[in-house]
């Protein structure tokens, strides 16, 4: 085939091979974008200040060891917390306003389990050895966390525990359907590997505190709350009225008596819920007697929901009035309560509704009331004088001048495993500052390590890791560019069926696959941190965002950045900021 020959078509255009780089268009800029990582709300809510958005980011990429180490930076108990932490992080997850919160605790547990399955050894930095030694009283989560962080800061620690095994309530109290013993043991072993001496079965007395000055430079007192308070009602001393904590302890040891009839559990905290759920597993019907309203119950919402699923009944606004024994059965008389006032926090104040009582035939009563310190000398000092009050600890000096930190359930505002861990970390950092810079430096140094506008302290910020570069601005939902996200349902935590649950003490929550974990972590907005999505570079109309060999992988060439702000706008997760250019 031949085409008709035509003369060349006229083509006169402007085209240049000269570089335009000499025109430094960055001089036109009056706004300046910069990479500016910020704080995710979840990490503020986490008492242990875990870097959750980064944990999810690493999990998405299948970097499970790195993700696990990111937890370990702030919390020695990923496998434990993944199971039993009440995950306040999820309540403030920005993704809730989009579809559903990220299943942060499910991913944490997955990482903890993956590390155990693959026998991973963390590679965490440790500070050079320091000369001070610290004694820790109580091998609960608070004491063990204090030892863990102190050891990483270079201090020698000895942990003393009355019970034969370390772990505190995690070991003897939390039922195994929530926390398997193996998971706890592995995490404690890792703390011991740091060189922490854990001495169990030790009698501890006030004398110990007095003597400690001879061998130690400071003492941490963590927890040991075992004796429940009294109901102070007729019939309380009946043989069928038991202590809830003692019951849990017995069940955890493997002593599983058969229970019949209805057992009443007095109290509204997590212990009450645990007791009731154990009683259901042992064959009884369980009735929780609650003085306040159901919505004011102190127990964590998720635990209450699971208990109700398992058939536990909750009787709200009732207070035990007397217990009578008749024909081997108990008659529990309850005084009805009425709401007299609702405070600013929405919590009801109640008082007896005169004349209204009700009696129940029951087989047994478990008391699960507020606990108090095991020994009087472990109680917080009555006076605030000379006491440095921190969010989760109190620091003071003994008569002998020895610094003592009260932590764990003795001092935390919420009795939870993660608050106990927070108190251990707070104590470790406070003591390190005290030894290095003196007591006046404690508050300012710790305040500088607070995450966002919250109260949680970060070890990584304290030791000057990359996280210390982040702004404390907490990313809000309206700062997320949701155009880059799609509605995706949250992972459904696989669980034993209700019928299977109430027949045994087998762990309820089942493990998830790595695929599911990566998928769920991929839902995370990664609020405030760069996940190298490359939007800044792709959208830059001036090619002023360049790839470079830095951890972030990209940087801004201010010679040509005109400050249009597109990169900041298109950053899905608010990891950049646009600021007014300051004249030089």
């Amino acid at each position, binding site marked *: 085939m031949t085409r008709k020959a035509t003369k060349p078509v006229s083509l006169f255009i*402007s085209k240049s091979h000269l570089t335009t780089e000499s025109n430094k268009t960055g001089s036109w800029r009056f706004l300046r974008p910069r990479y500016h990582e910020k704080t995710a709300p979840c990490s503020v809510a986490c008492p242990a200040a875990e870097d959750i958005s980064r944990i999810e980011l690493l999990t998405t990429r299948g970097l499970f060891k790195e993700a696990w180490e990111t937890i370990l930076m702030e919390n020695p108990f990923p496998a434990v917390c993944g199971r039993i932490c009440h995950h306040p992080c999820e309540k403030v997850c920005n993704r809730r306003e989009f579809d559903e919160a990220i299943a942060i605790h499910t991913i944490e547990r997955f990482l903890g389990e993956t590390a155990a399955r693959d026998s991973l050894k963390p590679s965490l930095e440790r500070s050079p050895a320091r000369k001070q030694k610290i004694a820790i009283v109580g091998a609960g989560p608070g004491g063990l966390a204090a030892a863990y962080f102190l050891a990483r800061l270079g201090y020698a620690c000895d942990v003393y525990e009355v019970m034969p095994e370390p772990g505190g309530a995690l070991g003897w109290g939390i039922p195994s359907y929530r926390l398997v013993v193996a998971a706890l043991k592995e995490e404690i072993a890792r703390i011991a590997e740091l060189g922490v001496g854990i001495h169990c079965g030790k009698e501890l007395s006030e004398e110990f505190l007095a003597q400690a000055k001879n061998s130690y430079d400071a003492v941490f007192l963590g927890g040991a709350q075992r004796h429940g308070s009294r109901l102070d009602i007729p019939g309380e001393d009946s043989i069928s009225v038991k202590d809830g904590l003692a019951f849990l302890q017995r069940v955890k040891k493997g002593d599983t008596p058969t229970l019949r009839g209805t057992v009443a559990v007095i109290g509204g905290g997590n212990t009450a819920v645990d007791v009731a759920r154990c009683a259901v597993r042992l064959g009884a019907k369980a009735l929780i007697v609650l003085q306040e309203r159901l919505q004011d119950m102190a127990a964590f919402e998720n635990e209450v929901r699971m208990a109700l699923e398992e058939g536990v009944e909750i009787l709200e606004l009732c207070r035990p009035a007397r217990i009578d024994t008749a024909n081997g059965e108990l008659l529990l008389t309850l005084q009805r309560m009425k709401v007299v006032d609702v405070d600013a926090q929405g919590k009801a104040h109640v008082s007896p509704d005169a004349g209204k009582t009700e009696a129940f035939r029951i087989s047994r009563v478990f008391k699960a009331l507020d606990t108090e310190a095991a020994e009087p000398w472990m109680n917080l000092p009555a006076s605030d004088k000379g006491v440095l009050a921190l969010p989760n600890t109190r620091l003071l000096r003994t008569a002998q001048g020895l610094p003592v930190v009260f932590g764990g359930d003795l001092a935390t505002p919420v009795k939870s495993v993660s608050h106990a861990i927070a108190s251990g970390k707070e104590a470790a950092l406070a003591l390190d500052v005290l030894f290095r810079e003196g007591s006046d430096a404690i508050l300012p140094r710790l305040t500088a390590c607070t995450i966002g506008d919250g109260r949680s302290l970060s070890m990584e910020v304290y030791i000057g890791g990359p996280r210390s570069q982040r702004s404390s601005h907490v990313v809000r939902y309206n700062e997320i560019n949701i155009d880059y996200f799609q509605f995706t349902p949250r992972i459904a935590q696989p669980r034993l069926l209700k019928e299977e649950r109430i027949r045994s003490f087998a762990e309820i929550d089942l493990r998830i696959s790595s695929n599911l974990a990566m998928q769920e972590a991929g839902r995370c907005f990664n609020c405030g941190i760069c996940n190298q999505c490359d939007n800044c570079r792709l959208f830059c109309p001036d090619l002023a965002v360049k790839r470079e060999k830095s951890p972030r992988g990209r940087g801004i060439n201010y010679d040509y950045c005109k400050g249009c702000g597109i990169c900041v706008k298109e950053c899905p997760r608010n990891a950049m900021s646009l600021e007014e250019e300051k004249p030089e």
Partner: protein
Amino acid sequence: MKRVLEGSDAVAEAVRLAKVEVISAYPITPQTHIVERLAEFCANRTLNARFLRVESEHSALAALIGASSMGVRTFTATSSQGLALMHELLHWTSGARLPVVMAEVNRALAPGWNIWADQTDSLAQRDTGWIQLYCETCQETLDTTLQAFSLAERVNLPVMVMLDAFFLSHTFEPVDVPDQDTVDRFLPPFHPRFAVTPENPCSLSQMAPPNVYMEMRHSIHEAMQQTLDEFAAIEEDFENIFGRCHGALEAVQCEDAEVILVTSGTITSTARQVVEELRFQGEKVGILKIKLFRPFPVSLIRQALRCAQKVAVIDRNFSFGASGIFAQEVRAALYELAERPTIFGYIAGLGGRDVTSDTIEEIYRHTRNHASAEEESIWVGLHEVDHAIGNR
């Protein structure tokens, strides 16, 4: 292979066969079927092209200007308001001499809101430097789209292929869809005369001061002039390979015609029936179908119309304050002739109103029965309206 396709499908098949590399478009009725089909081709890998979804027609064309500058074959489709929104970049495309091909479904401009056939949208863009081709049938649409790529790339000018809304875009007709090997013989891969590539970094379309700007404009004009020959050459190749062609113009029974109807688009098909019927009645009438509107083929038009006594130009478009746009152009083309026919301008079928055989016969008879044309365009089939509506 013969298939029954709507005009939108015919365009999409041609784009697939042309192995376009980058498509960018924004949906607008009645063009949407074209890009929907192309999106499917891209998704199922029938066509290995990047389909860029954008937020507006302005961005659609901007994206193609970028892609085309890098020397790849590009396509977009739009209609009416969408084309109007592209206006700024229409000038840019031709000024930058980029061979972008566009399917433009002729639809009325709002308000009043109207999605039906009307040519004013594309004719309003006649001065933007785009080659304009108006199609009559689905087959012609497929063939013209293929030719458009060849033409655009040979003259370095963008090409607009026009289809009447619904009458063509949504009407099914038997279409011969050629196989890929045959199309490859007609349309080789695009070898750009200039391109920005990472290997050949350069800047294009930068500042052109008064000492060169005029020459650049003249170069576009020259390329437009050369388009007439290039299009003829392309049609010849096309006919050699596919056995059919449609012509920049088509004269139907014009040799002895006393009255010639000038048409474009789908009105032509109806006119063919009317002319056949009138010829049967002994009337000396013919049709001149104008397909190539830019560049306007002046000498071909003079040749086709010079012997007629009267010419009736049917415009499905209007330039306010003037007349039908084809009529203006035809008048201007014939003005220099020493002896020229009387030219009648008729406005019909705006906003999708049917131009039936009765309408065309009425136009013919009005032309035949009047010795001289009015100055004003004649609006055919106007209804009585209540002008007081706007005051209520």
